[in-house]
């Protein structure tokens, strides 16, 4: 049987999953945590605690600041020391709640036992409400508030839930370990999301470099079938290892053979995609009342002495994590939050982890150095690699020329910043650097145009209404 995968582009970087054998391990609680108020896509949360307040693990620190926002909970027990700006991993100021840790006292309603809870709540709305109250956001990278994703706009129906266990980034293994060690919880979480969406089918998609996980989850799915009708319709799908399979659009293509239109959402083609760690967080929030206060982080790199998959309290300073494992190695030249393809280079090691922090990767200068740029040899490898079917060589040229119209016509706004073009360019041309810059500009232009069109439409409507009013429209009684 042909191995299933997405249809356009993709690259095959070395797997480098050297931490795959490291079991999930709880990191000790740091003396101080810094919990950011904006750990999700959308409006920052509004703090509901003040300096000097005593908080417990799982207590609400901040409420959603809008429709697209999420609850933030305390990951430790202790005293709120300050609420103010602090530098994040890029060195930009972000509002954080600083908490000095005292003991480890949890909110009473949180079930901290290991007992599996397989009975699902009756009401789908109750599931979504608990997900919202648990502050669950997408842990695959985008940190999209999960309760918003599970409430499709009217007129849109979900046909399939896809649970993303691809972990296509090299080095990262926290999803893999979660599947192996918390497979039951992930599958129950899948059943919960499935029920919340009211969808009959769910597919847990795993790349075939994780055969143990595929085998294990298959067993778990079979064993849970007896627990109720909600557990039927869950399938495990093995996908061919290829980067960026875990990209939402690519995964929908691989699993459902459907493509999301440019500017559209997965729900437009009947899909909802959630990461395996999100499914675990959903399980914990709904079945155990445990909000999203910790998450798994792979700490790895050939030059790093101790590989690990750690469960880290949200807001733990990065250097606390690193020092626990022996400190930054001499040979390391770059520290990356996330994987080597899409991760972010860290400028500030004093920054704290967030809900979406999935990995800390150490690379040597040799591993990460960019080669000197030489002439484009028009080999087309960038276009072959682009999973969106774009032509990076062309976008690079247009970006340098500043031709915004041509950039938009050639779909620069569809770029998902996966890095395949730059990775595969034999001439070392910094394609993604120029393309992402152009992408930002073009998206700005498109937003401004949409806003202007909306304003014009509203003005026209108001004018029409005013005209109708003055002539005494017969429809107005």
């Amino acid at each position, binding site marked *: 049987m042909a191995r299933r995968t997405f249809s356009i582009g993709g690259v095959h970087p070395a797997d480098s999953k050297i931490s795959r054998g490291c079991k999930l391990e709880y990191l000790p609680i740091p003396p101080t945590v810094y919990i950011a108020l904006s750990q999700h896509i959308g409006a920052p949360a509004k703090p509901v605690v003040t300096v000097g307040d005593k908080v417990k693990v799982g207590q609400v620190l901040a409420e959603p600041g809008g429709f697209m926002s999420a609850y933030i909970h305390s990951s430790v027990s202790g005293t709120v020391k300050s609420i103010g700006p602090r530098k994040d991993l890029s060195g930009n100021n972000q509002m954080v709640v600083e908490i000095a840790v005292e003991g480890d006292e949890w909110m009473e309603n949180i079930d901290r036992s290991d007992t599996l809870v397989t009975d699902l709540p009756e009401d789908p709305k109750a599931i979504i409400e608990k997900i919202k109250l648990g502050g669950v956001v997408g842990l695959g990278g985008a940190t999209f508030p999960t309760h918003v994703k599970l409430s499709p706009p009217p007129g849109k129906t979900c046909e399939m839930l896809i649970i993303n266990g691809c972990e296509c980034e090299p080095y990262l293994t926290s999803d893999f370990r979660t599947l192996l060690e918390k497979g039951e919880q992930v599958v129950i979480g899948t059943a919960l999301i499935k029920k919340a969406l009211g969808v009959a089918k769910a597919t847990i998609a795993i790349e075939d470099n994780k055969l143990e996980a595929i085998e294990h989850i298959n067993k778990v799915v079979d064993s849970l079938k007896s627990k109720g009708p909600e557990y039927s319709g869950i399938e495990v799908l093995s996908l061919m290892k290829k980067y960026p399979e875990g990209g939402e659009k690519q995964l929908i293509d691989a699993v459902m053979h459907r493509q999301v239109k440019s500017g559209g959402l997965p729900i437009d083609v009947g899909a909802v995609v959630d990461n395996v760690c999100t499914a675990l967080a959903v399980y914990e929030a709904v079945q155990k009342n445990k909000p999203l206060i910790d998450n798994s982080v792979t700490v790895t790199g050939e030059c790093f002495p101790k590989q690990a998959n750690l469960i880290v309290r949200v807001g733990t300073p990065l250097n606390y994590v690193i020092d626990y494992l022996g400190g930054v190695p001499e040979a390391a030249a*770059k520290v990356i939050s996330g994987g080597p*393809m899409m991760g972010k280079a860290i400028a500030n090691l004093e920054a704290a982890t967030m809900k979406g922090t999935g990995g800390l990767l150490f690379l040597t200068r040799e591993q990460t150095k960019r080669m000197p740029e030489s*002439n484009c040899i028009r080999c087309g490898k960038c276009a072959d690699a682009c999973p969106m079917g774009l032509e990076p060589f062309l976008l690079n040229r247009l970006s340098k020329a500043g031709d915004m119209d041509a950039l938009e016509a050639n779909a620069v706004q569809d770029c998902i910043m996966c890095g395949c073009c*730059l990775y*595969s360019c034999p001439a070392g041309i910094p394609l993604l650097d120029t393309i992402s810059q152009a992408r930002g500009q073009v998206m700005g232009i498109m937003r401004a145009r949409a806003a202007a069109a909306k304003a014009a439409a509203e003005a026209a409507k108001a004018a029409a209404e005013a005209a109708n009013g003055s002539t005494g429209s017969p429809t107005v009684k």
Partner: protein
Amino acid sequence: MNMSMDKILVSPNPHIHSATTTKVLMRDVVIALLPAVIVSVVVDGWKEMLVLAVSVLSCMALEYLITRYCFKKASTLGDWSAAVTGVLLALNLPPTTPWWVVFLGAVFAIGVAKMTFGGLGQNIFNPALVGRVFLLISFPTYMTHWEIPQGLFGVDAISGATPLGAIKEGLMQGATVPDLMASHGYTYSQMLFANIGGSAGEACAIAILVGFIYLVARKVIKPWITLSILGTVAAVSCIFWLANPAQFTDPLFNLLTGGLLLGSCFMATDYVTSPMSTKGGIIFGIGIGFITLMIRYFGSYPEGVSFAILIMNSTVPLLNNWFHQKKYGRA
């Protein structure tokens, strides 16, 4: 913490890079040409070795001198592209070509066809082919006199024409194709195993195909351009041959003679001068195949691959404008 902040590198993603660089790709092309080089040296002896040495060394020297002293930039010799041009040019010349003619070909290939456009990646026409065509037009005597191969240690070279040349000459004198094939004793096994006259690279079909398979297997090139050229030549010559076997040579003869295999495997697939998209590449290949046959059947030159590729090289910017990659979600 034992690392000072100023030591950390911060740059946008991706943070790793594929090991396939321009140098690796070009070196693979040279490796893929080695079977043809070895066969041509074994068949044509020390004269071919001399042609190869002069061609490769002059191409590399010219590349170095022009980048260093005209462009005033770092030398680009390390990318191996000059070596590729050198080997291809040599394989396109008869082993009897005098050294100074080979050198002039290199001057035209590197100096005119490649460097005047700005070096690797900038040229419109395949440098080695420009060099060959320049020599073909300027020195027809050297370029159309061939020796029947006598092997590496052979002494008594017999001069003669290539199969394509002999047939063309014969047809003009009123003979028919089957008679000419029989009177010259051409067989397909000769063509496959390098026993017919011709420029070095034309001589052994199998050696060229081995190199082609290597390039495809290593994913240096995609096979579509080559296959569309060979398919077009086979299909179109089949029509002519079936219509009039006395006047037109058969498909297998057309596939195995002349520079068709060398051209379609190594020159038409040159990244710089071929279309970026697969669709564009197939149109490009059909064009090359068709023009080659038209020149062979109706033109005054017995051989047309070089001209066909150069003509189609000029259409590449247009093909790149017309044919684009299939985009995600924009069907």
